[in-house]
């Protein structure tokens, strides 16, 4: 076990116990852990997106490694821009173009997403923030179009096809008892659940009784979701405890035990002193 792994374990233990300490009360350990988590997450996501998409797939297509000498005024000017960027950020724009398997000719079409991306960043400049709307409009429009078909196909048609029972060929009557029961439950649950969200008619009388059945179906569904949520959270707790137990061994210099001890002592001291920084 090398030093960096042991150090990493100590940091992991501190952050885990720091977050758990919130269960006692809000305190500086929790604040530190929370801010470190948010900062590291944002930085990590941005770095990953840049080095796995923007640099290889955008810049790599705009300025691929040219085959042989660059000829022509336009190409020389185009790679002149690249060389200028290379002077500022040589790791992003290495000498001789970016070789990520996109061929040797620039894909000028990608100037469009590049420009839209820059426009979105301009939202921070008050005078030019209107340009950001173009980028956002493109993203929203593209996403809406892309999702509309997929939802219609998988969530509407696919679900209807999967749950519908054909009466024409009479397979309903050839189903087993359990399947008939399940299909009836789906039928009743779907119809009463949908009727519950029909607000053009007052939920009274027979209609009210039907929508009441819909509420029961919804409550059962929420109950199942709650049960699964509890199960998931317990699994995550088991995962953290498993790590804390392994970090509490001699290999990691008893990291869990030491950090836990120091935190308990400091929390106790702050509580008894009534430190104003520790808010309950």
């Amino acid at each position: 076990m090398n030093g960096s792994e042991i150090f990493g374990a100590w940091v992991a233990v501190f952050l885990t116990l720091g977050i758990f300490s919130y269960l006692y009360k809000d305190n500086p350990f929790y604040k530190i852990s929370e801010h470190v988590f948010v900062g590291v997450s944002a930085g990590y996501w941005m770095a990953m997106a840049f080095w796995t998409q923007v640099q290889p797939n955008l810049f790599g297509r705009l300025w691929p490694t040219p085959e042989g000498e660059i000829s022509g005024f336009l190409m020389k000017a185009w790679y002149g821009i690249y060389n200028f960027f290379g002077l500022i950020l040589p790791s992003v724009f290495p000498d001789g173009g970016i070789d990520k398997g996109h061929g040797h000719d620039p894909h000028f079409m990608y100037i469009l997403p590049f420009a839209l991306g820059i426009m979105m960043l301009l939202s921070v400049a008050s005078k030019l923030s209107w340009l950001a709307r173009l980028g956002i409009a493109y993203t929203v429009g593209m996403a809406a179009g892309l999702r509309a078909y997929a939802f219609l196909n998988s969530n509407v048609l696919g679900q209807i096809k999967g749950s519908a029972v054909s009466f024409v060929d009479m397979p309903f009557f050839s189903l087993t008892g359990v399947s008939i029961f399940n299909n009836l439950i789906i039928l009743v649950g779907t119809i009463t659940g949908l009727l519950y969200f029909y607000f053009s008619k007052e939920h009274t009388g027979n209609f009210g009784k039907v929508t009441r059945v819909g509420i029961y179906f919804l409550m059962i569904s929420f109950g199942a979701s709650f049960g699964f949520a509890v199960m998931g959270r317990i699994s995550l707790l088991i995962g953290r405890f498993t790590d804390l137990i392994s970090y509490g061994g001699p290999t990691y210099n008893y990291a869990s035990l030491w950090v836990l001890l120091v935190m308990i002592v400091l929390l106790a001291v702050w509580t008894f002193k009534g430190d104003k920084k520790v808010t309950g």
Partner: protein
Amino acid sequence: MEKFLDFIVRAGSLDRRYIFLVIALVVILPLFFPLGLPIRPTTSSQDVYDAVEKLEAGDKALVSFEYGPSTKPEIHPMAVALLRHLFERDVKVYITCLWPDGQFMAMEALQQVADRQYNKVYGEDYVLLGYRPGAEAVIKGLVSNIRKVFTVDARGNFLDDIPMMANVNQVGDFDYLFSASAGYPGTVEWVQYAADPTGVTMSTGTTSIQVNEVMPYVQSGQIVGILGGMPGAAEYESLIGQAGIGTSGMDAQSVAHLVIVGFIIFGNISFFVERRRSKKY
């Protein structure tokens, strides 16, 4: 009797921190002293197992890692178990990631299973294509042309230089698809943009909280089987006969559930007793 009811009402307003402490204890103790409770696979886990069993040596499986450290205890055990099953059957494994931290989860799982346990060769038996941002747009790209999305793998090798990438151009070229998903983008997007349009057999492993959302796709036959959270992982481990992290956590899971159910019942009794008293006075 009245004293007992007094106790129940008082206990109902117990400081929540005592409940946290009890939950911590009932989770930790079984980790130190395992009970060895039996694990019975559900139909949905069995379906995933059967789908993999139908694959033959040399078939191609696309496995997507869509989770990170925050959901690792739930998804990672099932990802490891699935990789074990796939490599056991000599299926070629192609890995993509729609979450940035999914790449590191995949690297860890591959190191454990492909390198150490099965001595598989990178580029011939498995390949880590890596992460690409773009969510459903990435899946859509993979369905039409993988090389539009990935020109290099996670190690920087050109796709055309990787032997097992020969004749693999789109999702339709795969025999099996598995999404190890902890949210968006994940299982739902793979169903909508890959499995439904191409007809490739797809299974999934999700966090417990997602099971309700994904189950309709399983029941309609759009997904073949689902592994739900840590119990799903434990069931799959029992099916392949290799106990792992999922199995070791199930005792703690079961005991914790029992205690939580107890708390819920007790809390309800306390609530109803208190309500009856307030009506009375």
